[in-house]
């Protein structure tokens, strides 16, 4: 299901010119800003029915960490 996750991130952040990897620090993407943040929150809610509060979200930096957090919550 990582493929689906990667696809979602690529779409939400409108990454067009490259492929992204799970080790990426998404906060360092040039596409990353406060609105990308909101779009990502909305998309995660839509796709996974998961809402990650800001305090936890702030600590996540790689796509891997974000994915793990979502998995943890969907399995709970």
């Amino acid at each position: 299901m990582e493929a689906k996750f990667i696809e979602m991130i690529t779409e939400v952040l409108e990454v067009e010119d490259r492929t992204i990897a799970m080790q990426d620090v998404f906060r360092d993407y040039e596409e990353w800003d406060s609105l990308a943040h909101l779009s990502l929150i909305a998309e995660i809610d839509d796709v996974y029915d998961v809402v990650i509060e800001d305090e936890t979200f702030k600590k996540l930096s790689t796509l891997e960490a974000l994915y793990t957090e979502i998995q943890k919550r969907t399995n709970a």
Partner: protein
Amino acid sequence: MPNISFQNIGISGMAAAVPKNTIDNYAYTEFFPAEDVKDIVNKVGIKERRFAPKGMCASDLCFAAAEQLINDLQIDKQEIDLLIFVSQTPDYRMPATAITLQHRLGLGKHVAAFDISLGCSAFVYGLSVIYGLMQSGGFRKALLLDGETRSRVYSPKDRKTAFLFGDGGVAALIEQNEKFGKSYFSLNSDGSLADLIKIDAGGYRNPSSADTFTEKVVDEYGNKRTDEHGYMNGADVFNFVLKEIPKNFKSVLAFSGNSNDSIDFNIFHQANKYMNSYLAKKLKLESSKVPSCIAQFGNTSSVSIPLTIVSQLQNELKGSKKLMLCGFGVGMSWATAQIQVEDCEISDLVEL
């Protein structure tokens, strides 16, 4: 809370007033580089806002709107029995602003007048209180006055809030009449989220002092404000909206027995362009049924719902129309209503 309903009470007319003083958001560059400002403004979709000049209060905007409404509808002032002012930027800490407005508007001493302190949910809350009191049968006409000068609440040096807020005031006339049929409300609160949008100092918990007026850098981005300024945690506010608002909207729609198809207009609190389009998409609403005034007036807190109606629907409320109103924000507090209007009179926008 459980959904509640009222019978044969409705809004027969509305008016709004905004300050003439127009802020071009792209040119609001005193504290931030023009490039950054352009980015922010494009994202939040707020091109202009109105700022009340020094000395102009929310009550002054409401007063102007109320006078316009009273004149346009030829309302007999003696028939107004109830006046509620909803705002979090009142004239004084005491007395209640509603009472000063009773006098300024030349209303009788028989008027019941009081304030309700709520933010973005306040118009819907205020309506529900008036509908409830009107249901008792004793009140002939009621005025709901809703005004805010949020431009004074936030720090111009905090980019999280500096580009969002504007000022305005509205007046709505509420009457009893069988033509209005049934209306449906849901009112909600979550005080565990009180820290998401807040002014820390200046009340009785943290009284004003030299320290509360000292500007501080408050985060890693270098945003600056004092404890007397408001602040907002936008990401968690958005999380809150995701969790609660679509659910609440749907519950009121279901309670009324109507579907999206039979609603003429859905009017949401105007927080920012992004939030507006998110809600419309999530609730599968046609964009033509979701009017917006965010680009023109910014986020005017509780005023945003009625200001959207006055500025965008002036010629659209002829005949019988069903409206969904949905306000959410500081508290956190949120409220949804479905109301019916019949040939609702909308005055021309007043500029003060």
